């Protein structure tokens, strides 16, 4: 079980799959440089440098999947999905239905996401709620290197379109590239267990299966990505106050592991959602609906991004679901 970084875990899963399956190709801006090892191993015929034309290369990925390839498409950041959403919403996600099941659409979209390094509101969004709303799509959001590897591996074997979110704050490579830029003068609040960890080559993580990261009977905190680590830290501190939190890492948003959430909330009667995505019409609401649909009536709070992510580091830190905000909400729910 070698240790590796979060971003490298995704790279590795892709590399392993590409070695096994010659129909996998990688498409994206700057991939010859960003994924140099894959170019070195598989050549430029399978690692295609794309122009800054997200709409065309996402659409082409759908067409290539129809033609028998299994494209992996990288976005520079999920913030830019706005120029290419049509390919995802109206083509990849609907091909199965439109073709009467004749075609699935095995495309993996790798979407770096999230803030925490002061890059401003057009470069720090999460937007997984927006994508998870689309029937026909699979949406996964790992929070550890092991899950990053395992979910990528699973996605690469899945026959439908998958969006894989890669938290930039967990990904040492992105953080260096976009945040640090070889400076020693900046620091980031990186959760160590998310940024580096053991990865088991060949392991997969099933879609739609959450992981209970910590057990506790007083309060359920549901989260993904960085939020999981913030929740765990908050849970540690809350434990010191005698409040035992159960922390659920949802891992997939579509399909969503409703059962794990419901079972936990049934026990704790309290649900707190810590989500880096926008607060309204998204994940936090979906989990509220899941709880109510199951006939549960938990006390409930959501700690999410309320507005456009601000640029200034201190404002950004306050706007993201941080440990203090989670603790404060937890205390309100358990008072």
């Amino acid at each position, binding site marked *: 079980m070698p240790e590796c970084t979060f971003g490298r875990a995704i790279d590795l899963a892709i590399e392993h799959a590409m070695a096994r399956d010659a129909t996998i190709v990688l498409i994206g801006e700057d991939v010859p440089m960003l994924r140099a090892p894959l170019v070195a191993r598989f050549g430029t*015929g399978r690692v*295609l440098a794309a122009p800054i034309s997200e709409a065309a290369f996402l*659409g082409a990925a759908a*067409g290539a999947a*129809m*033609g028998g390839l299994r494209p992996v498409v990288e976005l520079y950041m999920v913030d830019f999905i706005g120029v290419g959403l049509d390919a995802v919403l109206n083509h990849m996600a609907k*091909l199965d239905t439109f073709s*009467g099941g004749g075609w699935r659409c095995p495309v993996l979209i790798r979407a770096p996401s999230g803030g925490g390094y002061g890059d401003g509101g057009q470069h720090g969004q999460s937007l997984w709620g927006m994508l998870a709303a689309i029937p026909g799509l699979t949406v996964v959001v790992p929070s550890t290197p092991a899950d990053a590897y395992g979910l990528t591996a699973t996605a690469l074997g899945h026959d439908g379109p998958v969006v894989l979110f890669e938290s930039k704050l967990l990904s040492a490579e992105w953080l260096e590239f976009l945040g640090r830029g070889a400076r020693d003068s900046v620091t980031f609040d990186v959760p160590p267990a998310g940024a580096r960890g053991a990865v088991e080559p060949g392991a997969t993580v099933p879609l739609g299966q959450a992981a209970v990261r910590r057990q506790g009977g007083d309060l359920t905190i549901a989260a993904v990505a960085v939020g999981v680590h913030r929740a765990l830290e908050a849970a540690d501190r809350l434990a010191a106050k005698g409040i035992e939190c159960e922390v659920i890492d949802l891992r997939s948003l579509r399909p969503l592991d409703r059962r794990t959430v419901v079972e936990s909330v049934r026990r704790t009667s309290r649900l707190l959602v810590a989500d880096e995505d926008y607060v309204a019409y998204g994940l936090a609401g979906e989990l509220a609906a899941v709880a109510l649909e199951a006939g549960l009536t938990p006390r409930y709070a959501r700690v999410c991004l309320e507005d456009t992510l601000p640029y200034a580091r201190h404002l950004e830190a306050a706007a993201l679901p941080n440990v203090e905000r989670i603790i404060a909400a937890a205390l309100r729910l358990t008072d």
Partner: protein
Amino acid sequence: MHPDLYRQMLRARAYEVAVADLWRRGLISGEMHLGTGEEAVAAGVVTHLRDGDGLALAHRCSPPLVVRGVPLVRMLRELLGKPDGLGHGRAGHMHLFSREHLAGSSGVVGASLPMGAGLALAASRLRPRRIAVAFTGDGALNQGMALETLNLAVAWNLPLLVVCIDNRWAIATRSADVSGGEPGERAAAFGWQTARVDGRDVLAVHAAAQTLIGRLRKGRKPAFLLATCPRLDGHFLGDPMLRMARQPLTDGRELLGEVAGAATRKGGDLLRRVGGVLRMTRLLVQARAGAERDGRGDPLQQARDAMARDPEVRDRIEHEVHDEIASALEAALIDTPGGVDA
């Protein structure tokens, strides 16, 4: 005149005439975009395709699919919303997909170009000497993903033929009113090999496509074929602009009344108002002129005339196509009350 080209054109037209009838009878729902007048392009291009070639289509997709040999009954069943339709009745006429034929369509304007680029990419990696063809309208060449694909296909040197059917309109807008430059020039500026044909002339289309596709199979850069075509029957069945243009005094009355009413209300400046009314009138006149002039240039009629030298073959083809469509229709309507004769 190669008889098969005439046959394919006739199949496409006859199929669509049948579809139009089903649509008018209310057995098909929603919009219905037919390729009436585009049959020569479909036949001239698609007859060059081989197994393993891809085909990406826009909303006006029936003629190429018919020529490609997609089973007519499954297509009709789809339009009728039946579970054994191509898309199990869940797709509809802008979303006809056949994996067997590597063919797909889309109702989002411009989407056929990236889809075609992807099919071409797959062909280039998996199927030597196989290519993809994307059909597009002229209006679609103002859509970002289409323009991006003009670049992408060159950057990746894809074996892609884009066939742009230039009918000079996008729904109710004359393309010239909202477009700069010529489609072919645009493609050339991105580095495509380009050609231009009269899209009513099936032999010209066939020859041009042969040259371009031949080069693509040898690995030459992507090719762009501009085929000018009449829009014989408006944008879609029931097109109100066409009805107004043809019958301004009956079908146009309501709109023209509203226009006149607004133009004479207070506010706004007078010159502008007059300009507005003139613009409406101009659009209607153009729509009518287009429909009439183009009506004289029906490509199917031209092809039929070219078959006159061989009336027996022509008659045989016509009978066979009639029978083919009639029996497809009968099969498609098997469980529809009223069926074929309603």
